[in-house]
């Protein structure tokens, strides 16, 4: 679970000794996020986002459980109870805005966390399982966020539910029965709302469980680092506590400040006014868009406008959208370069930034109306997205000449401050 030089847990207080003997939970915590977990000494601020995602999950669970106390999962009252929470419940407005914007912040930090993993090659051996579990968390988050957005039973809730469950209707033969089965009716209704509420309550705890597996899988090889060079000895690491608890604490402070700014000054900035109109099955909003965090995938869905051979455009769009995420599960085996960090891969780095721009373009088009030029731009951008992973990345891995890697993390750190290895001893002695 850790490096041989990890400090062992020795409870001093008799009560803790007693507990540790019966149930070594304090030991587990100490080894997982305490002084017993040695971490590379050179992590930059991009390594904060894992802990921040955990913090966002906690915020969502706390505010979500509170929201559930004031919510009625019935189409007759759902919209009203949410408005009642906003207006009548003490601090209800705060809980709801924190929950709605908390979801956005959860996705912001998770996207930055994925971005970090992509740039620094965190998905590569021996951390493939960490990456795969992370993607499972991401899929669960998307399902949870989608179902949560249906609960206020506004216009966007209703039509979002209709469009997203309609995706399953695109599957040949079994599509329509599946859609009916998911909704419990021919259109979103009371049955749909109830099951979405039930699952929206359940899934965050499933996410929490997968997060534990994610961290467990991470702690077997230990954290990666910006050089991508593996830890070679005790001089390359510092204990998680107090070094990274302090660094993550600082990051959490920044995160909470930004969260508070949005929460208190622009709580509806990321929302859609249409969702303050109660669901009406007879009137579609002029412009149905999902929440911003789904935009890149929504753009890929809409990029297919013509049939291809015998496959209808609708099915192609659905397949492409799911494939764009499932593709990431194969990433550890598509990128075969032995060098992890993008900092030492000049060609990879250029294409990495092009990919980021490509995803941002997709995101922009996903939020725009389904008209030209956005459709054509999404088609090009979607094609590039797949080309990046399936063609460009494997080719780069084969032909790129990486920059020379430092011999160790310590060497890289010292080189940064213009010191040589001879001074290491002096630094350590201090």
């Amino acid at each position: 679970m850790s490096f041989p030089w990890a400090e062992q847990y020795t409870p001093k207080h008799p009560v803790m000794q007693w507990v540790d003997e019966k149930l070594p939970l304090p030991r587990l915590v100490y080894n997982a996020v305490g002084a017993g977990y040695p971490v590379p000494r050179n992590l930059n601020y991009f390594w904060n986002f894992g802990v921040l995602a955990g913090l966002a999950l906690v915020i969502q669970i706390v505010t979500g459980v509170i929201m559930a106390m004031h919510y009625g999962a019935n189409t007759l009252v759902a919209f009203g109870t949410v408005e009642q929470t906003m207006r009548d419940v003490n601090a209800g407005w705060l809980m709801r805005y924190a929950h709605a914007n908390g979801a956005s912040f959860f996705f912001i930090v998770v996207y930055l966390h994925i971005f970090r993993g992509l740039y620094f090659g965190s998905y590569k051996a021996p951390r493939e399982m960490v990456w795969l579990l992370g993607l499972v968390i991401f899929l669960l988050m998307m399902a949870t966020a989608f179902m949560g957005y249906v609960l206020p039973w506004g216009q966007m809730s209703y039509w979002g539910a209709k469009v997203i469950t309609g995706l399953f209707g695109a599957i040949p033969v079994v599509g329509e029965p599946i859609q009916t089965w998911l909704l419990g009716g021919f259109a979103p209704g009371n049955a749909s709302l109830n099951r979405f509420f039930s699952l929206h309550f359940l899934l965050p705890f499933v996410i929490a469980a997968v997060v534990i597996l994610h961290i467990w899988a991470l702690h077997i090889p230990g954290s990666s680092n910006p050089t991508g060079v593996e830890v070679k000895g005790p001089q390359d690491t510092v204990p998680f506590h107090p070094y990274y608890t302090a660094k993550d604490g600082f990051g959490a402070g920044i995160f909470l400040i930004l969260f508070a700014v949005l929460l208190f000054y622009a709580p509806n900035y990321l929302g859609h006014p249409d969702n303050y109109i109660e669901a009406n099955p007879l009137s579609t909003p002029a412009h149905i868009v999902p929440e911003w965090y789904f935009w890149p995938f929504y753009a890929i869905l809409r990029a297919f406008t013509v049939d291809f051979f015998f496959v209808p455009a609708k099915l192609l769009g659905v397949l492409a959208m799911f494939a764009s995420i499932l593709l990431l599960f194969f990433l550890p085996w598509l990128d075969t370069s032995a060098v992890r960090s993008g900092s030492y891969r000049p060609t990879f780095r250029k294409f990495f930034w092009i990919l980021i721009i490509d995803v941002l373009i997709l995101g922009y088009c996903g939020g725009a109306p389904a008209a030209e030029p956005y459709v054509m731009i999404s088609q090009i951008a979607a094609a590039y997205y797949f080309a990046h992973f399936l063609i460009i990345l494997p080719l780069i891995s084969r032909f790129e000449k990486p920059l020379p890697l430092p011999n160790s993390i310590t060497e890289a750190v010292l080189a940064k401050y213009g010191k040589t290895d001879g001074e290491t001893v002096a630094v350590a002695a201090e």
Partner: protein
Amino acid sequence: MAIVEHLESEGAAVSSGGGSDGVRRRDFINIAAVSFAGVGAVAVVVPLVDQMNPSADVLALASTEVDLSAIQPGQAIKTTFRSQPLFVRHLTDKEIAEADKVDPSTLRDPQTLEQRTVDGKKQWLITMGVCTHLGCVPLGAGEGENRGEFGGYFCPCHGSSYDTAARIRKGPAPKNLEVPKYSFTSDTAILVG
């Protein structure tokens, strides 16, 4: 009991001695027990999955009756059938001509206006108001709504355009707007469902 014990010891003796068929009594019991438990597990999954299908009250929705007498040529109304929107349109002669002008073989979902209406009631176009792409309600039934470039219905979600016979002409939708099962109960009334 004595018989069972006798058989068991005999089975063990056979297996240890490398019985002729190589199957031990214990293996048989093991496979039988696990298979039975498997059948039980599958039997339990059926109601667990099936409970999510539409319940009886959802399925028991009655058919819808629509009075056509007030709908003037060129007008359309929006009503509901099985909690989904239903479009009832009174086509003008010009719209009928436009629909007939099109060669069905050039269409994505080839159908003529005749096939989509009742014999002798070609001016009454009754369709579901559910876009066949992802289920939005197309615009065009209400006064002054965007009817798209083919003069029928236009889905604002992903830009599917339907013509005056509600056939898909442009955009991502794969099929024409669905024509539900209905019949004329009189010259000015229909029963849908």
